[in-house]
């Protein structure tokens, strides 16, 4: 489905669309407070961007360095070209350890690879432990936001869901009560798990360590109880030095939720005593982006979600209207890179306001990349033919001044004289909720000429 029609469905429920918009704007406002409280905010953004661009320019060397150091610390490093290989690697590790139950903390990469359904098909129970992720998992749907997976749901819906699955009281909607129920439910899962799976926020080439950030403590509980820890990461999650973490951790939570830092920022250097640590490095299209001058910067992304929170379209259309693992501005760049035919409408789900670019902590030029995607899609003939033909026709007129002036006079006259029903009809989306601009008798060029003439005479 096209984004526009899914968005229109979302907007139809005006009360809910506004509720969604306000929830996310609230997060954006918290982010603003943090950003404005730190005098070096813009310097941090610039530094983070430069670190990532530096990393990209030597990614091969840094990956090897990371592998070397992580291996020396006792971790096992795996490489996966695509989602299928990633899933297979994870499954093989689990199988060789006889694992039946896995607890997982948030990892957008495993969402991207659709790991959960794959493992479930192979008889392994995967429990998402982030509260928001657990909620959408119980609903059997994907997250609608990369940081707040259940931001599209009201507490009444979550209450009903928990009543059905966790046995909470019917009609209970108090977030405190519902969170407590999830805590009890997930404690059991943590205690019964054979392995812990996590994503990776940052991997440090210099030390061979990985850093995972959560507010709930689920990554730490999930890895400190079972002996087996599998961490899955896209190859762009690397940073060169441990000191770079100072820059990124200062930006991440402030941008994401308006916190000064996530509650837990956990640094894993090798497996814990008696345990095993496997790190899966995944490409899945990232090297293609690396090779593109236009889209390379999208690999800077640290998945903070700030571009979603600020995007006026995302806020009013909901994450699911993008039908992609990562929604919003950054998702609208990443998804077409994976499948341009399927996601061709996403780069157009944008008014090019540029707020995402200004909010991005790693300075991805998001709205320019979306514009570049539009060009790319037009080249691949993936822009609807009606749009392309309309633009060609318009340009044909606009190239010739006399034709443009004539068409303008004719068009304005039509607008003045035509009955309303011939102007405002189903084929005119502008006029559905808006009046067309006034159609003056004279265009500026005519007024200007008259005025000059009058002055010349006087």
């Amino acid at each position, binding site marked *: 489905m096209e*984004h*526009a029609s899914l*968005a*229109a469905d979302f*907007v*139809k429920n005006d009360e809910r*669309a*506004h509720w969604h*918009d306000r929830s996310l704007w609230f997060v954006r406002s918290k982010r603003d407070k943090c*950003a*404005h409280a730190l005098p070096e*905010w*813009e310097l941090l953004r610039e530094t983070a961007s430069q670190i990532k661009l530096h990393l990209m320019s030597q990614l091969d060397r840094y990956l090897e360095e990371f592998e070397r150091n992580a291996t020396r610390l006792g971790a096992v490093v795996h490489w996966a070209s695509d989602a299928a290989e990633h899933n297979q690697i994870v499954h093989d590790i689990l199988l060789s350890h006889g694992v039946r139950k896995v607890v997982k903390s948030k990892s957008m990469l495993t969402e991207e690879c659709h790991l959960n359904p794959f493992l479930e098909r192979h008889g392994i129970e995967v429990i998402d432990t982030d509260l928001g992720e657990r909620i959408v998992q119980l609903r059997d749907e994907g997250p609608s936001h990369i940081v707040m997976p259940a931001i599209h749901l009201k507490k009444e819906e979550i209450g009903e869901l928990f009543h059905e699955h966790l046995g909470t009281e019917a009609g209970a909607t108090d977030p405190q009560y519902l969170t407590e129920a999830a805590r009890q439910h997930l404690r059991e899962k943590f205690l019964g798990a054979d392995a812990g799976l996590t994503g990776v926020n940052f991997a440090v080439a210099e030390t061979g360590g990985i850093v995972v950030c959560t507010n709930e403590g689920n990554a730490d509980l999930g890895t400190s109880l079972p002996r087996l820890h599998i961490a899955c990461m896209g190859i762009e999650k690397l940073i060169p030095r441990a000191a770079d973490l100072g820059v990124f951790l200062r930006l991440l939570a402030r941008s994401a939720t308006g916190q000064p830092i996530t509650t837990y920022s956990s640094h894993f250097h090798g497996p814990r005593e008696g345990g095993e640590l496997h790190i899966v490095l995944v490409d899945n299209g990232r090297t293609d982006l690396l090779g593109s001058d236009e889209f390379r910067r999208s690999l800077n992304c640290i998945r903070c979600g700030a571009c979603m929170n600020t995007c*006026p*379209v995302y806020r*009013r259309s909901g994450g699911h209207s993008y039908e992609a693992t990562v929604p919003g501005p950054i998702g609208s760049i990443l998804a077409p890179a994976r499948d341009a035919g399927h996601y061709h409408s996403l780069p*157009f*789900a944008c*008014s*090019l*306001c*540029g*707020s995402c*670019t*200004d*909010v991005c902590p790693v300075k991805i030029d998001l709205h320019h990349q979306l*514009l570049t995607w539009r060009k790319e*899609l*037009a*080249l691949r003939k993936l*822009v609807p033919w009606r*749009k*392309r033909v309309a*633009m060609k026709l*318009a*340009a044909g007129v*606009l*190239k010739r*001044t006399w034709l*443009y002036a004539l068409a*303008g006079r004719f*068009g*304005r006259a039509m607008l003045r004289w035509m009955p309303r029903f011939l102007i405002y009809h189903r084929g005119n*989306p*502008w006029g*559905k*909720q*808006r*009046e*067309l*601009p*006034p159609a*003056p008798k*004279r*265009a*500026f*060029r*005519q*007024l200007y000429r008259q*005025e000059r003439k009058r002055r010349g005479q006087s």
Partner: protein
Amino acid sequence: MKVGLFIPCYIDQFYPHVGMAVVRVLERLGVEVDYPEAQTCCGQPMANTGCADTAKPLAEKFLSVFEPYEYVVGPSGSCVAMVRHHYDELLHGRSGFDELKAKTFEFCEFLTDVLKLERIEGAFPHRVGVHQSCHGLRELRLGSSSEMNVPPFNKTRILLEGLRGISFSELSRADECCGFGGTFAVAEEAVSCMMGLDRIHDHEQAGTEVLTAGDMSCLMHLEGLLRRQKKSMRVMHVAEILDAAAGEAP
């Protein structure tokens, strides 16, 4: 100083009085203005739809039309941003292109940056709500955007602030997009209109009598919504306010 007036196509066709206001304001300030009639459209609608090759001849036309002028001034941040930031791939290496980029200004920034005006004489005793058009704000940097931690400034507002009797409405969301976005306005009609109505409500709660902006395209969209809803809020381009205010000068 000879200024080539760049009147974007939709202003030429639908809002001629905005163009005339620009002429009057500039002439009052002693600027010699000329409107080259051969101009049509900068090609932004095509470029923003991804049809760069379709936009190219229009960019070439623009370059040749405005080549002779010392400055090019247009009352639309979005169209000026097209020239300054998005013509690169269409006109890269053409003779006169670098000069074109350097000499093309949005109306307000021409007044503040080239004419170095700090205030304009006049009176406008109304409560004005300034809509920060996105391309003016985040492409041309006519003001500081709310996302960034930079010293606050605003080239549009500073011109209005000197008018006698004027007051400003303060919005709950200082610079959110109105939802026009060119073809976005029709391709994503539902979201576009919701965005526009949300801006209007913000201005209503802030007590805006006159809604203004440096970009008539945003105002075309907002005015369309206001008129359909039969609301009394008036819409004026910044140039119209400056022009009307001068009429009130002592």
